[in-house]
């Protein structure tokens, strides 16, 4: 029986582990947190069809209970060595694991919105991120401002920390456009009188049903989309926000007063992936995400033979794409192990 170590117990890690267990291997997941599920735990409802994230979490949980693989919680990988065609792993809790193959599924981290100081996150009361908003969208979420009223006008800012040379991230995080559309619709459903404005550069509705959702947002929910980036926000005495932007379609600068500003934060490679990559001597792209051998047939292979990559440690990815990428990683691992025999 072959032993495969999966680093990261998020969506990708669990999916890989399930597939490989089904194929008859012995799998161990190393997870740095006490809970599995990774970033899925941040979200309440998923685009494009408002599936409760809880539902996906439950089925993952169920799978974990049914399948016979072990999970080492609150554990990180310390070092990795190759010995006689096998891997020898030292963990942060001084365990030693031997593995025939490794799968990295270390995922991403959310962009720290405080790095765009001009938007005032954690400086102004009514500036929140998409991750903050997600928790408020649950049925028991409190959608009132500090004045105790519901917000009357809300603005979303797209591409916070993505496609932005100044914050050092040139790439597109892919999922924030549709997240913004989804959250705007949800807010409008909860607070039908609210006015919502989305400030965007481009709206990239690349996935199944995304474009339809965007059309609904405009036609059914009367959400306004303004092409232009926000330059700055300032807080007024009543804690409402004055935002300055440019409407690049009409070619005019604009100022607007809003009660709530939502920053659609992007994905970054994060410390966990960077640490695991350096322990495994893996190469990174300029963006920090891990390098795959190619973008087509070998999108699960790292530069190191026997170490495979799954999910958003390779690039920003939606949950559905992550699941597919993880399954393809499992199939690649299988093929490789057969070849090695």
């Amino acid at each position, binding site marked *: 029986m072959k032993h495969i170590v999966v680093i990261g117990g998020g969506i990708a890690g669990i999916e890989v582990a399930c597939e490989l267990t089904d194929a008859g291997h012995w799998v161990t997941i190393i997870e740095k947190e006490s809970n599995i599920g990774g970033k899925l735990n941040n979200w309440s409802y998923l685009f494009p069809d408002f599936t409760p994230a809880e539902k996906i979490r439950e089925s993952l949980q169920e799978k974990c209970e049914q399948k016979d693989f072990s999970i080492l919680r609150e554990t990180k990988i310390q070092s990795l060595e190759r010995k006689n065609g096998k891997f020898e792993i030292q963990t942060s809790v001084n365990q030693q694991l031997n593995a025939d193959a490794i799968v990295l599924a270390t995922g991403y981290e959310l962009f720290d919105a405080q790095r765009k*100081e*001009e938007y005032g996150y*954690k*400086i102004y*009361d009514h500036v*929140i991120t998409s991750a*903050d908003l997600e928790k408020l969208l649950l049925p028991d979420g409190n959608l009132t401002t*500090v004045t105790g009223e519901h917000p009357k006008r809300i603005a979303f800012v797209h591409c916070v920390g993505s496609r932005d040379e*100044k914050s050092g991230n040139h790439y597109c995080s892919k999922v924030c456009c549709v997240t913004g559309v989804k959250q705007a619709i949800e807010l409008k459903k909860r607070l039908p009188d609210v006015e919502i404005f989305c400030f965007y550069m481009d709206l990239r509705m690349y996935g199944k049903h995304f474009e339809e959702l965007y059309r609904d947002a405009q036609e059914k929910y009367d959400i306004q989309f303004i092409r232009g980036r926000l330059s700055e926000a300032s807080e007024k005495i009543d804690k409402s926000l004055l935002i300055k932007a440019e409407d690049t379609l009409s070619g005019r600068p604009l100022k607007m007063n809003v009660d709530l500003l939502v920053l659609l934060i992007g994905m970054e490679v994060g410390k966990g992936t960077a640490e695991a990559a350096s322990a495994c001597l893996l190469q990174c792209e300029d963006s920090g995400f891990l390098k795959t051998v190619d973008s087509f047939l070998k999108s699960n292979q790292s530069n190191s033979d026997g170490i495979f990559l799954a999910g958003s440690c390779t690039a920003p990815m939606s949950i559905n794409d992550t699941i597919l990428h993880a399954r393809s990683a499992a199939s690649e691992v299988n093929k490789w192990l057969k070849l090695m025999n």
Partner: protein
Amino acid sequence: MKFPPSFILPFTIGLLFIVSFLIVIVGVWISQLSKIDKSRIIHNIFTRKTLLAVHETFMESLLHRKIFKKNPVLGYMHMSLAFGWFLLIVVGHIEAYQHYQTLSIPIYKTIFMRYFATHQSITLGGKMLAASMDLLLLFVLSGVLLAYYKRFNSRAFGMKKTTQLKTGDRIALAALWFIFPLRFLAESVSAGIHHNGSIISQPTGNFLASFLPVQIFEMPLWWGYSCALGLFFFALPVSRYMHIPVEVVMIFLRNYGIKVQKRIDGFSRIQIYSCSRCGICLDSCQMTHAAIKDTQSVYMLKHLRNRKITDEKLFNCLLCGRCQTDCPVGLELNSLRITQRIESTRDYNSSYEYLRNGKIAISPQTQVIYFAGCMTHLTPAIIKSMKGLFEEAKVQYWFMDEEKTACCGRPLMQIGQYEAAQKLIDNNRERILASGAKKLVVSCPICYKVFKEDYAIPGIVVQHHSEYLLELMANGRLPVNKMNTRVVYHDPCELGRGSGIYHQPRLLLDEYAEVISIKNEKEEAFCCGGSLANTKIQMAERNQIREKAMDEYVRYKPDVLATACPLCKKTFAKSRQLPVHDISEIIYMAIQETKPSKLREEQQLKNTVKI
């Protein structure tokens, strides 16, 4: 009448050429000065200022005191060449007067004295003069040797880089390298023949005569020496050695109070020609950290002199002023660059007519105006802290640019758009004066500099918030609470080198945190790399400059990097190696700490996101 030997011709013609050339060109430059500057010369020429200029010429052009301070070996090299040569000429003349016993001697007879005066002086004075001439020549030769060595190994002189040469420079440099060795050989050979040498040339001459037919070598060597001098004089106008005569003129004019103007005039040409291309500015320039090696001041001046400046080089500069601090000639490098930027951007002057046509907003009556600046609006934590501190000190103020105000004008000035900037200045000045304020507090050093220097707002004290908060604290209007946070303070270019504010921020910070003193601070401080003055640099290059400075700060292991400029804060924050805070934030945080915990909790509760 006996004709002098023909070998003196190259020297004599060269000397005539260079003297007339210099008289003409300096005359043209002085004629181009403004009327005010010309009257400055007339009014000051017979005052103490001339003596000061003589003193400065002696200290800088001859002794090279500033280069000495920077690097003793490099200083010695320049001093031995300049001061040594100068003394050779002076002592040579004294020796000639003493020898010929007359004051009317043709100049070639003093320069080539050892050829003409074929008998040794018999007086003690004459002997001593001859001996000192030999020693002086040795002194100069030691400098020449160092110059040879520096050309091939500049690192030995503590210089990482040395300037590239042009053809004119090469000819003049070669001539300069040959002048003194040839003189020494010619004098030694003559001493070998006529026994008219002194303590060094005579033994050398005797030695050479012991195995060489010295008679054959005498004329060619004197010819060589004369040619080298002549060549040097002819190459001088097209070489960097023009700085030798022009720098002296510049020192006198500068002492008379003449400065670089906002247009290219005679004085800016004089400054341009005064650059010796020593290359010290290359070492202080942080652009080299991003591998940008052809836009530094020395090259800008070279291109300005040859009238071949491109926008690519002119605008690829942070205007941080580090080169100006280090320039041994004391050239106004930032002003010279801005002057050329004004010339280069004349065609695309923005109109800002809407400011003139629109109504000027009414100003409320106030004692204190707060002007945050556009950069500070991108760092709202500073505005929040300033608002808190005003409240703490119970100051009534008018936040002039809270919602809408024209830019201060300084970024436009940095890229040469003075006319456009003036329109913004006029607009803002009217609003400031209408408020009846006595004080203008500014959070951004870029704005601070322009308010202080270019706004004519009599009766209004302009203060950067670090000065203002220090004053509030000293008057007991802000509580003091020294935290044990270790802080490195980064001097912003426009506040430090630009406005000379080094001590107030440190005095203030010292009351609230532990300030660590570092190597590159005050006049020597780094630029953050974010400067608005550079319109050509790439973001990746800015990042390289920033990281190099940040690496230096991290070595001192501070808890916080403090600065007093929103642009520096924003730039350094991107590095993520250290937490970066403006001085106002640190003081606000320290004061918050002194509040009773219940109040603080309330404050914090208020600040947490409830929605």
